[in-house]
């Protein structure tokens, strides 16, 4: 797990207990989600903001 307090201190940001809990929760979820990433994906796709495709008709 990341050391959020140190990272924040480097940016001169004070982290409260509540913020720390949120950041740790997000970090934990992202660790789990990494398993779903398609590592073969063309990185350029990420430079295009995903817009929904037209499927209504």
């Amino acid at each position, binding site marked *: 797990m990341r050391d959020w307090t140190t990272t924040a201190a480097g940016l001169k940001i004070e982290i409260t207990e509540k913020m720390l809990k949120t950041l740790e929760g997000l970090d934990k979820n992202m660790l*789990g989600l990494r398993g779903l990433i398609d590592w073969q994906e063309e990185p350029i796709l990420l430079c295009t903001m995903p817009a929904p495709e037209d499927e209504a008709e």
Partner: protein
Amino acid sequence: MTLIETTQALRAGKVSSAELTEECLKRIESLNPRLNAFLTVTAEIAREQALQADRERRSGMDRGPLHGIPIAHKDLFCTAGVRTTSGSKVFENHVPKFDAAIVERLREAGAVMLGKTSMHEHAYGITCDNPHYGAVHNPWDLARIPGGSSGGAAAAVAAGLCLLGTGSDTGGSIRVPASYCGVTGIKPTFGLVSKFGALPLGFSLDHAGPIARTVRDVAVSLAAMAGPDKRDPNSAHRHADDLLPPDEIPSLAGVKIGIPENFFYERIDLQVDNAVHFMAYRAQDLGAELVPLRVPDGRQLNTISQITLLVEAAAVHEPYIRKQRKLYGDDVRALIDMGRVIPGVDYVQAQRLRRRAQEVYRSILMQVDCLLVPATPITAPNIGQTEVAIGGETEDVRIATTRLVRGINALGLPSLAMPAGFTRGGMPIGMQLIGRAFGEKELLRIGAALEDATGHTKLRPGIAGE
């Protein structure tokens, strides 16, 4: 009267726009001290626009269903010459020189601007307990929040201060207040409504849309707002002129409605669960097929959406937070600080995962026409309440409130929030219909059929009768 009924009355010459506008201004003067739904009232502009609308109508001109209708804009949509604060101290004295695209479009449609509605600071929260301009109150119970961030708009519509309020939705900010105030709102497909001139929060998650009393009111309002705009790089090349559902929808035969077995109906208040399921059964009575299905874990989608918002909002506020830190309320400042701490690699990975989630939802919505789910797992909490107990578990009010709406912003799909009933204590319960990209017309048709079959929108808060 609903917006549609008012349009009919205007067209029949039973009432003038000037009379309607005076009535709304009188109601604002009388009720706003209790509701705090309006931050700025533009009485002179409203009177002038109403007289203009009446003159045009007398000369035979009809600009459409919004011609002469009194409306209000959320205070993050730029209005030329009228202060636009975004509910913040940072923009306390911000007077734009131009109109936002939706302000412009609604003015061209003949709508009358009554003023600017209150909101959560910078649209970054759901309580509308604003540290600079005071809390907005829910018309159904003044001790409760209206939801947010477009809480002023929803409270104003519910209390009959205006017939339409514009809203924005980055993580539920149209749908949450619609749910908590017993009105109707739609977060359209990403790109359908231009965001030009809307002060941003999360640029890939922000959506603009209408809040009004009924589904048909929302349909005509959205049609007036929507359409391509070269000034907004995210604007889709789509028009949406013909969204109004028919007067009568006798059947929903052939419609497939997905009822998720997981996530959306987990850990929700029992009365909310019952009311929303009742709406699903009404749809079935009308001929729709209910299709049980499973959706990807909503917590994952919420994480993707939350990381995206935290980082984008931190980027948006970068120029202000450093120099004007003290002008931010505690909750918004903490969110922006969190966004500054999250590494860039997490944001990029969130976008990869977001693309994947979009593909999964696309395939789900190939099987069904829409998903019918609660908008919020609870009804409006009290002002100042920070935690709520649901199913024996205690949850942060902000997290609970956005749990079922936040992820849909990352998908960019349209979602119609509408009343699904009331608790025993008389508080509104909200549901949402989530549809295919640019499938607003079908969502509104299904919503209108359910509205006709249940009549929930006919019930008004006591304050609306004052």
